[in-house]
């Protein structure tokens, strides 16, 4: 892809300046605080004491953290996969519709009511005495209430529900610019519908698929309220762990260190994924040979 040079006439830097300034001031500065905190000693009463130590990073070696991480990965992977499977056809349908804005509102408006209220509504639907069980019992499909809530399945269901719109939107806006005559040409050449979609559509909307993946996987990885409200005794995720370390244990350095590890691992994972896909969703592109080094530099700068 060609990129326009930044001369006085082409205001690339001008367009980028607001984002650069905003994120550098209001995001990097606080991030630097967190990085610093992860290397300090926890204050006896919360906060930190200014003596450097690696204790927080040593504490992460604790096996309970590994167990929570595994649980979190399973839930996040599962929920993300389901979300994507639903979101792709939805984005496709919206992109092909003539009433795009109405459909967009249909997807988003249910989410303009309070999050907690909606979770409570799910509890009312899925509970042992809830609407779904009432329905199943009255239809005679079951003879005893089914326990839908308070297990990993419930956590995943509500997570899918919560993040579905964020996955649908990028897919819709990418598929929208896809040239559907390509798909028809493939069909005319004898490709089945599935293989036409697999070979022609999906490769052309990689950017949207990846963005949707990021919008779903990353927030789910840090999920906090959903496992708390609809999970059972074993549904404890990294988000809960960090919140508990910060608020209940008052160990700010440990909470910071866990966040740092998550951030680094996720960032690296994302960059590798993008690299492997050769996509430019994050503005990366295939023609710049020094790409990985550039990323590392940028990360270094971020720290």
């Amino acid at each position, binding site marked *: 892809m060609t990129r326009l040079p930044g001369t006085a006439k082409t205001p690339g830097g001008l367009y980028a300046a607001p984002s650069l300034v905003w994120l550098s001031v209001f995001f990097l500065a606080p991030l630097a605080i967190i990085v610093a905190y992860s290397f300090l000693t*926890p204050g*006896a*009463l*919360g*906060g930190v004491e200014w003596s450097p130590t690696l204790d927080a990073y040593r504490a992460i070696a604790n096996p*309970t953290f590994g*167990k*929570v991480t595994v649980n979190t990965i399973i839930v996040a992977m599962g929920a993300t996969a389901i979300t994507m499977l639903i979101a792709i056809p939805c984005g496709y349908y919206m992109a092909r519709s003539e009433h795009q804005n109405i459909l967009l509102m249909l997807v988003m408006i249910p989410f303009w009511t309070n999050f907690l209220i909606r979770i*409570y509504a799910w*509890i*009312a639907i899925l*509970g*042992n*005495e*809830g609407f779904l069980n009432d329905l199943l019992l009255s239809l005679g499909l079951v003879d005893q209430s089914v*326990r839908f809530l*308070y297990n990993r399945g419930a956590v995943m269901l509500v997570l899918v529900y919560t993040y579905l719109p964020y996955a649908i939107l990028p897919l819709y806006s990418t598929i929208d610019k896809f040239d559907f005559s390509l798909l028809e040409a493939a069909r005319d050449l004898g490709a089945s519908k599935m293989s036409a979609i697999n070979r022609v559509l999906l490769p052309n909307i990689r950017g949207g698929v990846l963005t949707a993946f990021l919008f779903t996987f990353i927030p789910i990885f840090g999920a906090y309220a959903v496992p*708390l*409200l609809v*999970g*059972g*005794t*074993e*549904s*404890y995720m990294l988000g*809960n*762990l960090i919140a*508990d370390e*910060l*608020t*209940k*244990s*008052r*160990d700010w350095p440990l909470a910071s260190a866990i966040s740092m590890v998550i951030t680094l691992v996720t960032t690296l994972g994302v960059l590798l994924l993008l690299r492997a896909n050769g996509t430019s969703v994050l503005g990366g592109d295939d023609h710049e040979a020094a790409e990985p080094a550039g990323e590392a530099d940028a990360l270094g700068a971020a720290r």
Partner: protein
Amino acid sequence: MKKLVLLLVAVAMILPLTLSSCGGGGEKLYLFNWIYYIPDDVLEDFTKETGIEVVVDSYASNEEMYNKVVAGGAGYDIVVPSGDYVSIMIAGSLLEPIDKSRLKNFGNIDPAAIARIGFDVGNTHSVPYMMGAAGVSINTTKVSGYEHSWSIFDRPDLQGRMTMLDDMREVLGAALKSLGYSVNDADPAHLEEARLVVERWKPNLVKFDAEAFAKSFAAGEFWVVQGYAENVFLEYPEDRRAEVDFFFPKEGMPMYMDSLCILKGAKNVDQAYEFIDYILRPDVAARIADYLMLPSPNVPARALMQVQPNYEFTDLANGEFKEDLGQETLKLYNDAWRRIRVGN
């Protein structure tokens, strides 16, 4: 078009700024409190009497309030921490000392309650507001043949129908009490015993829940829940309250005392004293206790109460105030709790 966008952005940026700084002159008091903890009409009457406007924001847990204050998020005059957090905040120099000579109604507080306070002996930095404890609520239409004891959580026949609070101190405190230890026990061996008790209860529990349990209890989904009476009764249909048996287990339980404290650096100290003294007035304290349906620590207020509280002051005899554990012991509790929550 471009100008329109620029204009919109400018308006968007200025709007939050102006709105937050507006709001006329006059005396003000910034109160950071648990939600629904003071009836609105009490605040309105206070404003009518004194001309001081009260701006209230709410929090859902001591931890949230505390972390916000520690990280520099002050701006409030009065906070209402529970006992253990009073001592933590005193140790962290986050509270102004209380000059009791400025509170002519301080003597109304039950000396029996004050005598049990360990978190701020002599009430140098805190003024008792309300006290109570989490107990166990049982749906008697579903459960029978039980004792008023923590052992209810040992019953496998109630598996999947019981919850305990998602609160380290409450759950470990319950286990410690069931073993006959203090809720503030610092002995690692005792704590390990308590952890094993909770591990024994855990397979019978649906979940640890401090947020939504009362709703599901009211819906008939949960039959036995550990929690605060006011949470449970606010959700339960009024005409069927007789179905609920709320009790404090005979082995004892952790207890809290929420206290009015003035934050260090508060800008409206005079107004804060005026407010605290107002709250201590018997008629006002009685209105608050009526609203919360809790026993009042204010002795003359008790005679003025018109509502039957959810439990009596004497029911709390078995309770023990949660105190701050200190960093070392807190770590032990945290480790035990994390093992319980994460599973081994």
